[in-house]
């Protein structure tokens, strides 16, 4: 197509652009404007239903909100796989999540049309590809499914086979987490000439975008659960290795457990009259991403600047993210410091940030690029509210006259927010490049259509330019039925049937919940059960709470 066009005369070329390009530009504007609703808002009802423990209603709400095809296909399989798990339909859940696992494969090449959609329209209008955190969580929920199925197995061989399935998932979790770490050192892969040129241009203006901080890949609680799987399979060497990795993680302070889980990492002590129970509790709902936008432009003698309208002095969520991300590649550390509550290292609140890489003299005078940069435009980013993502819930298991705290937990909310912060600088770079591309396109079409004798064509050019400005948005999509946190307990019980109570308190909301579970303990064996504890009806205010 391009080769054919190159053969046209300049006059024909302009006529072609007037007649043809103005229409897609208008389409661009309409598509961008249409997709303004965030993904979170489209499945609010699903999350409300989950918070009320009404998983059947949540599934019905999901079917209305998203479809198993199109750009949100992956999200459909992730959300429906989780909802099937919550209803105890473990086989269905595994099938759905396996489809998600295949779609989320980072090696999958994105179709050219999708790449162009992401650049030309908005990332929200492109196919959702997921991320490594979600890939590891697919493995985790499937692992729980296999463990639950193994607990219901009717023969030893079936149990072993199902535990083998859990072992496969534990391997996949480890691979996904390792890939996250490797990605930090990745160089840009092969790109088209246009993309390379855009990369170079934005790099010249913003500096090196490849220095992505290393997100923490070690998740000791997942290593601990992996060690339990090996233990249940009588593979003691592998159990010892997984346990050592978990212990090392705790000793390095990679989690915020209130105490070192000595009793959880000790070897099994069951005897002929007793067995053990491993309880994994999922609680609450993971926070959803929000969108912030700020103004980007080229100052008279100061180079590229970003400015925002947020109240940075009063620690607004947007202001904190703006200050973290725009601190440059080191913004991740600023975010972590804020998360840890260490105000000393929070950094100075700023409403305007300058990148003194290039000045206007760098650009060809009166070029569309310079025009666009001098006029300025808005850039949108997704972010997580700055609430503390420490463990929120406290729970204990009560049976007969005894009580055990499930005092080891993992805050998935903290993990997902920190991972997002680690990638934020990269996202900023991409968002700026995308908006610059859209503005350039709109500017060029505007200049061509502006000369047209046809009022309609001129109008389309103007609308396209306005649409490109107004349609700025970030991709806030993520897997939203994941739990906020995971807790684990391991207790020794006499052989036989038991009814246990699990008492949970959500610290910030004060919401209490008591759940009963029935377990059958086999002498000398480890039994497994997982349960979900909804955090009650206060979902919508959850992300705004502070400690």
């Amino acid at each position, binding site marked *: 197509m391009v080769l054919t066009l190159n053969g046209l005369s300049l006059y024909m070329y302009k006529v072609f652009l007037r007649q043809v390009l103005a229409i897609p530009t208008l389409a661009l504007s309409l598509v961008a404007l249409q997709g303004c609703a965030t993904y979170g808002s489209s499945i609010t009802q699903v999350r409300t239903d989950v918070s009320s423990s009404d998983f059947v209603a949540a599934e019905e709400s999901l079917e209305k909100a998203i479809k198993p095809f199109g750009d949100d296909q992956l999200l459909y399989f992730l959300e429906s796989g989780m909802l099937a798990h919550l209803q105890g339909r473990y086989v269905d859940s595994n099938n759905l999540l396996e489809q998600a696992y295949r779609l989320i494969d980072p*090696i999958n090449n994105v179709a050219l*049309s999708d790449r162009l959609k992401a650049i030309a329209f908005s990332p929200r209008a492109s196919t959702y590809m997921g991320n490594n955190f979600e890939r590891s969580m697919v493995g985790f929920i499937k692992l729980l499914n296999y463990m639950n199925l193994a607990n219901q197995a009717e023969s030893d061989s079936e149990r072993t086979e199902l535990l083998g399935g859990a072992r496969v998932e534990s391997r996949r979790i480890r691979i996904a987490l390792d890939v996250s770490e490797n990605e930090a050192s990745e160089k840009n892969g092969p790109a088209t000439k246009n993309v390379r040129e855009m990369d170079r241009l934005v790099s010249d203006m913003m500096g090196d975008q490849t220095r992505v901080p290393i997100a923490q890949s070690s998740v000791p609680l997942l290593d601990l659960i992996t060690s339990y799987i090996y233990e249940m399979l009588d593979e003691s060497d592998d159990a010892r290795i997984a346990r050592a990795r978990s212990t090392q993680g705790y000793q390095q302070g990679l989690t915020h457990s209130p105490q070192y889980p000595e009793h959880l990492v000790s070897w099994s002590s069951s005897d002929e009259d007793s067995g053990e129970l491993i309880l994994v509790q999922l609680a609450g709902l993971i926070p959803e991403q929000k969108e912030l936008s700020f103004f980007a432009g080229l100052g008279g003698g100061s180079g590229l600047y970003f400015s925002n309208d947020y109240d940075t002095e009063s620690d607004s969520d947007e202001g904190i993210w703006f200050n973290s991300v725009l601190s440059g590649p080191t913004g991740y550390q600023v975010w972590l410091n804020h998360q840890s509550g260490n105000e000393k290292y929070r950094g100075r609140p700023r409403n305007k940030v300058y990148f003194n890489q290039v000045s206007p003299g760098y650009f060809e005078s009166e070029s569309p690029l310079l025009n666009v940069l001098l006029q300025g435009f808005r850039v949108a980013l997704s972010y997580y509210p700055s609430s503390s993502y420490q463990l929120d819930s406290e729970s204990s298991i009560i049976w007969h006259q005894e009580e055990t705290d499930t005092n080891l937990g993992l805050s998935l909310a903290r993990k997902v927010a920190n991972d997002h912060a680690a990638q934020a600088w990269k996202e900023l770079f991409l968002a700026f490049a995308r908006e610059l591309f859209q503005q350039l396109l709109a500017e060029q079409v505007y200049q061509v259509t502006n000369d047209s004798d046809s009022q309609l064509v001129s109008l389309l050019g103007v609308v396209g330019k306005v649409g490109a400005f107004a349609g700025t948005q970030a991709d806030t999509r993520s897997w939203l039925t994941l739990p906020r946190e995971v807790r684990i307990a391991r207790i020794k019980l006499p052989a036989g049937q038991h009814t246990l109570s699990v008492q949970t308190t959500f610290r910030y909301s004060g919401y209490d919940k008591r759940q009963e579970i029935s377990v059958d303990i086999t002498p000398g064996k480890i039994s497994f059960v997982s349960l979900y504890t909804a955090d009650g009806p206060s979902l919508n205010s959850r992300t705004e709470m502070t400690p």
Partner: protein
Amino acid sequence: MRLALLFLAGFLTACSGPGLQRVDADQELELTDRWNARDSREVSESMMTDMLSFPWYSEYRINHQDDRPKVIVQQIRNKSHDHIAVDTFINDIKRSLLQRGKIDFVAAGAERDDVRDEKKDQELNASQETQKALGQESGADFALTGVINSYVDQLNGKRATYFQVDLKLIDLLTNREVWIGQKKIQKLMK
């Protein structure tokens, strides 16, 4: 202007629909780097050829009046990151050896339990002349065990996946490991 054309090209590219191509049923298709039927067949054939080339086989035939050794396939554990149909792999192993007529297999695990249940049922329900008596099974001479493992390296949009299959044959009388075999498969996805 070049950017504008790129944008237009995106529109046109998005218009192309899915295509369908008929392929020969015997043609091997590999769309991903996951363990597949071809891996299962190639690994089993290669490893069984290696197993029969070791001294244990000729020694057994010499010492047992050219009788074929009886092998039981015990556990082959899948410790890889892929959900591998281990039963299919075991069947490929058995098929590879039975085709050559050099080894007899005896049933193991759940299959053996089912056969024994069937015999018990025959004692009650089958005619005396067609009953198959309990306690007449052939005892295995050797046990085959193994493990499938995998390693994954991924960087810059490329992924190398290694599958490694380790099998060993154990003399049930003496506990001697008479054969140890290893086969690796490497796949590069980009």
